[in-house]
């Protein structure tokens, strides 16, 4: 349900960043979404299209990098992704690890028209 709000916040980020490049068209926005962020990719795509339709951002593409949950073992420091909620370390089998990834909800880049828009 809140993907509309998330999509709207992404577009606010795009607008704020785009102000720094007034004469450049933004072609795409990259976002990083963790599996613990409670954002559904399909619902976000749908919301993004709905919010940009018939606006100057109609052709803006949303590019999603999906991030699985990652843990670091507190015994052997192995870093591993978590399939099927199995938090045991695959290297030493210890059961204690800390979460180091999977909560991301970030705008990571804008794809801008033109070769040298960097200011």
């Amino acid at each position, binding site marked *: 349900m809140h993907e509309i709000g998330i999509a709207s916040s992404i577009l606010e980020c795009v607008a704020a960043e785009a102000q720094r490049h007034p004469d450049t068209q933004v072609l795409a926005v990259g976002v990083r979404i963790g599996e613990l962020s409670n954002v559904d990719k399909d619902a976000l795509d749908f919301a993004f299209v709905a919010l940009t339709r018939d606006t100057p951002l109609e052709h803006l593409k949303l590019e999603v990098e999906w991030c699985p949950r990652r843990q670091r073992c507190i015994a052997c420091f192995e870093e591993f992704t978590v399939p099927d*909620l199995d938090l045991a370390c695959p290297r030493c089998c210890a059961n204690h690890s800390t979460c180091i990834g999977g909560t991301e909800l*970030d705008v990571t880049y804008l794809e801008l028209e033109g070769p040298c828009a960097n200011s």
Partner: protein
Amino acid sequence: MRELVERKVLGENDRLAAELRQRYRDQNILCVNLISSPGSGKTALLERTLASFTPAHSVAVLTGDIQTDNDARRLSGYGFPVRQIVTGGTCHLDARMVDRHLHEMGFHGPGLLLIENVGNLVCPSSYDLGEAAKIVLLSVTEGEDKPLKYPGIFYRASLLILTKTDLLPHVEFNPDLALENARRVHPEIDYIALSSRTGEGFDKWLHWLNSLQHSVQQAAPAINS
């Protein structure tokens, strides 16, 4: 041409939540954010919690719903300030709503601020309200696998409260399995089982709140004297 950005999508909410957190710290306010499905017993928990306090306690409640002020009316008979946040369709509370209603309510610490979020296990977990702890409620009339279906909130919550334990003889619900599932998602999550109807387990809940208050605001008076 690609321009790297690195902005939090909910950066504006996070900024406001950080301001709220600082304000809570300055005013010695302990804020907790209660999150659950609709009908898991958030309001009933708050009713019995408020009933256990004396007028000497400094407590305020913000309660969120998409429509109606029913919950605020239920909670207003205990002598503490209660304010309804009607979101008008939004499925969660955000830091801006809390900021505005806290200001209009005029609650200043020290004390306890209880926030009852909109009934929803998904969206509220994404929005930081500046709270010291998120608390997730699960009732025995739901499924034991809810932590696996909604890992985001169980990962972020500091405490899982199993509610409606008085109904356990009448339903097929295995509390041990529910806790096991919650700890698969979040091994360190605290756990209390209680009934807002009979009061069973309430001593543990009030003790948990009191301990949290001591850990975050040592100078303030105890909630549960």
